[in-house]
């Protein structure tokens, strides 16, 4: 054997293409898997952000189109949403997240389902603790009759995205419930 005719085949078979690189949606710099996000207040869209871009939008009172999503998780003591509130929310599953829209000056509730996050009508009476949430970027994530956390909004999207792929039937099914339990276990670890 004097040459290596299978060199190309060997190169292709042995190489594995690198997974597509994640980039900052604002400046296209490469970002790591644990990058932060900013919210576009006009479109309510989440954008991946590198650290420098993220830091430009951390002031809650600045009049900017984008707002940095914080990474703190706080566990709230006691039943934050009582049974009456849950009934008024008309949420079919015992899981919801509530957030404040600064632009519209109102609070909205979402619950996860097979089609992603569904918006729900909020009870007329605003709930006092919602004032402690940072508008647009933090949410109250609660399980009926169980626990509640203040979480960054990207965590809510992560959970809804996961549930969407696992959802079976009306209440989500076993796999979805397991995913929720696992998610809340991780929140408990992250909570300050």
């Amino acid at each position: 054997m004097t040459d290596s005719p299978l060199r190309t085949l060997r190169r292709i078979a042995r190489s594995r293409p690198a997974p597509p690189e994640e980039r900052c949606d604002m400046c296209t710099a490469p970002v790591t898997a644990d990058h932060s996000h900013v919210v576009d207040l006009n479109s309510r869209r989440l954008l991946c952000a590198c650290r420098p871009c993220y830091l430009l939008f951390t002031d809650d009172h600045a009049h900017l189109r984008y707002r940095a999503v914080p990474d703190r998780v706080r566990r709230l003591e006691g039943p934050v949403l009582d049974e009456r509130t849950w009934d008024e929310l008309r949420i079919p599953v015992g899981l919801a997240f509530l957030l404040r829209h600064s632009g519209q000056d109102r609070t909205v509730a979402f619950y996860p389902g097979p089609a992603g996050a569904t918006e729900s009508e909020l009870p007329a009476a605003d709930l006092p603790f919602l004032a402690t949430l940072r508008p647009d970027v933090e949410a109250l994530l609660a399980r009926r009759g169980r626990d509640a956390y203040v979480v960054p909004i990207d965590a809510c999207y992560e959970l809804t995205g996961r549930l969407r792929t696992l959802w079976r039937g009306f209440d989500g099914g076993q796999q979805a419930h397991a995913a929720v339990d696992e998610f809340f276990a991780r929140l408990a670890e992250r909570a300050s």
Partner: protein
Amino acid sequence: MASYDWRSAAARIDTLATGEQAEELVRVVADLYGAGLERILDLLHEQGAFTDEVAAAFAGDDLVTGLLLVHGLHPHEATTRIAAALTGTTAELVELTPDGVCRLRIPPGHRPHGLEQTIEAVAPEVTRIEFEQPAPVIPVSSLFSRVARTS
């Protein structure tokens, strides 16, 4: 199929597999056949048919060796393959380091032609080839003849 020219086929892959999609297709097909080859070897082994003679026959066949190497399935160690490929040449294997440096000892004089390709074909894990070549011993008489000529 007796006259199947696998070297030309390999060269065709070289020209056709350009662009990410084409490479991806080649990769997927190669993975599939690689998995099949591996299964065949496993089955031979399970049946007790994968003898040293069979392994040697595989090693002696250029096409089989080449394909087994594509998938990292060759039954022989790299040093065995290199030593076998060097049989009949003046070079001998000194060592193969874990990081793929292959050291060869060759006699003084001209470096044998095509050694690099020979090694690459049987041991793609080799990253670099180094030669150990003792300095030729110059006969004293030849030195004097040179002095005589220049003076």
